[in-house]
């Protein structure tokens, strides 16, 4: 069953584009990555799902319910963590979390205590006195305290030190094992690679690729690095499927998508010292999409 269903979603702020045409779905129990650079439309998509903004066209549903019409009902089972968290400065962490918990019809005290302990968060501190990283921890507890069925994260790891990031990712995996679906937006591809099973790549307001993380890497992409005995000419590599080409004297490197036989035929015509052909990581594929 699809937990999130986005169909031809479009959002314009006056004449300015938010998103152009976004369609994807997230299945129950999935850890879904949503990647793209700043301004591509990740946050706009997420804010539409959360009914913070209204779509210009298209539709979005969560748990089979329309995101705009059934927003309060949907929100009962959604946990949201934005990239930057802001809370009421005069409050103490514990009071803020209690206030947040008061919106859900369940006792969240045990859960708050557990999550705070996991993240080393002092509940007695005032929000004003917290560092950016500690505010983020408040955001994490706030997003997870009601054991949501869907967790939406918009660039969530900014501001957390590596150790805390690990703990946070472990908490997310724990939630995912419990059955929660996760929609994880990021521009840090290694995070998505580590955590997600499927990924959607967004560029200039459109989904340009939607695939399993593994498949995306296996999709005939090769990272080629070679060293020739004599200086190389860029023209040698002018063929379909070559991207991110760099030639430096007798050394060259590029990302290749296409027939391996074709690639080998070209390479066999060169007088080479060495050649390596590897699976590129997601980051390199991603850069390729943006060229």
């Amino acid at each position, binding site marked *: 069953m699809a937990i999130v269903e986005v169909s031809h979603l479009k959002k314009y702020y006056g004449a300015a584009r938010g998103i152009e045409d976004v369609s994807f779905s997230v299945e129950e129990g999935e850890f879904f990555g949503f990647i793209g650079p700043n301004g591509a439309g990740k946050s706009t998509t997420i804010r539409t799902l959360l009914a913070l903004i209204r779509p210009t066209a298209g539709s979005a549903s969560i748990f089979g319910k329309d995101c705009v019409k059934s927003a309060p009902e949907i*929100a009962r089972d959604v946990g949201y963590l934005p990239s930057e968290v802001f*809370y*009421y400065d*005069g409050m103490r962490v514990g009071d803020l979390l209690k206030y947040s918990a008061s*919106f859900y019809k369940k006792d969240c005290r045990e859960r708050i205590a557990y999550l705070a302990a996991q993240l080393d968060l002092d509940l007695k501190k005032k929000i004003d006195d917290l560092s950016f990283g500690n505010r983020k921890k408040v955001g994490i507890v706030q997003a997870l305290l009601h054991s949501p069925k869907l967790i939406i994260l918009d660039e969530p790891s900014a501001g957390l030190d590596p150790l805390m990031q690990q703990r946070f990712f472990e908490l997310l995996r724990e939630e995912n094992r419990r059955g929660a679906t996760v929609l994880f937006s990021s521009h840090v591809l290694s995070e998505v690679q580590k955590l997600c099973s499927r990924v959607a790549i967004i560029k200039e307001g459109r989904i340009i690729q939607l695939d399993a993380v593994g498949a995306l890497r296996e999709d005939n992409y090769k990272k080629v690095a070679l060293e020739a005995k004599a200086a190389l000419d860029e023209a040698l590599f002018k063929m379909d499927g070559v991207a991110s080409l760099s030639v430096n004297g007798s050394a060259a490197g590029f990302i290749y998508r296409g027939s391996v036989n074709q690639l080998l035929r070209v390479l066999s015509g060169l007088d080479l010292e060495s050649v390596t052909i590897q699976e590129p990581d997601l980051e390199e594929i991603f850069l390729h999409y943006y060229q």
Partner: protein
Amino acid sequence: MNIYLHELRAYWKNTLIWTLSLGAGTVFMFSMFPAFSGNAVALSDALKNYPLMIQLAFGLFVDQIGSVSGFYSFIVTFLTLVGSVQAMTLGISVLSKETTGRTADFLLTRPVARGRVAAAKILAVFTCVAVTSAAFITLSAVCAQAVSGAPFNHRPLLLMALSFFFVQLMFLVLGFCAAAVIPKIRSVLPVSLSCVFAFFALGILAAMLGNEKLYYLSPFKYFETYRILTTASYNPPFLAAWGLVVAGLTAAGFQVFIRRDVRA
């Protein structure tokens, strides 16, 4: 209910300060009444020499200055200005603080319909204004009783005191509606002060021009003290218009708040 209580907690100190200040102002101004009433004739003569604008601005009327109710017109004119600033700052800030403090994302992703959020918020600031008004009205009645040497008709005085609350309500919903339409109002107090004084000046101008239709443009002219002093009643068309304006601004504020985009 939790949003309502949260807002009350956020505003109780602010409300206490405004209420105490208004209370102190009321007591102070009433304490001047014996001096005024003792020299009523001389004061009336002096007042006659001032332009009409001054009489209108200060709420001092030549024929009414000697009575406690007539003097109260002067008090209520001034303190309504202060109360209006309080109400408008509350109306604006209860919505705008979520945008300027960037807490709107937190609040509006809770499982509560936006209409209920707006209702809880306006109810909380309405409570604050009602508390201030109740204290002001009670204190006005007590002070009037204390300083008037002789029995007097309480009705005009109470109607004027109650008009303080009505004008406050009008500025409260005006602020609420303004903050719904323009989410990022950062300088809440300067905006409220300018708006309140602009409407006050507009009221004086309307009175000077003698055009009653222009009275509808200024919240301060809906409950004109001179009319209350002389007829012991409100002007029915203005009372109806007040109801329409308050209901209209509230409904407009709700509609905009429910539908507006909350941008990052």
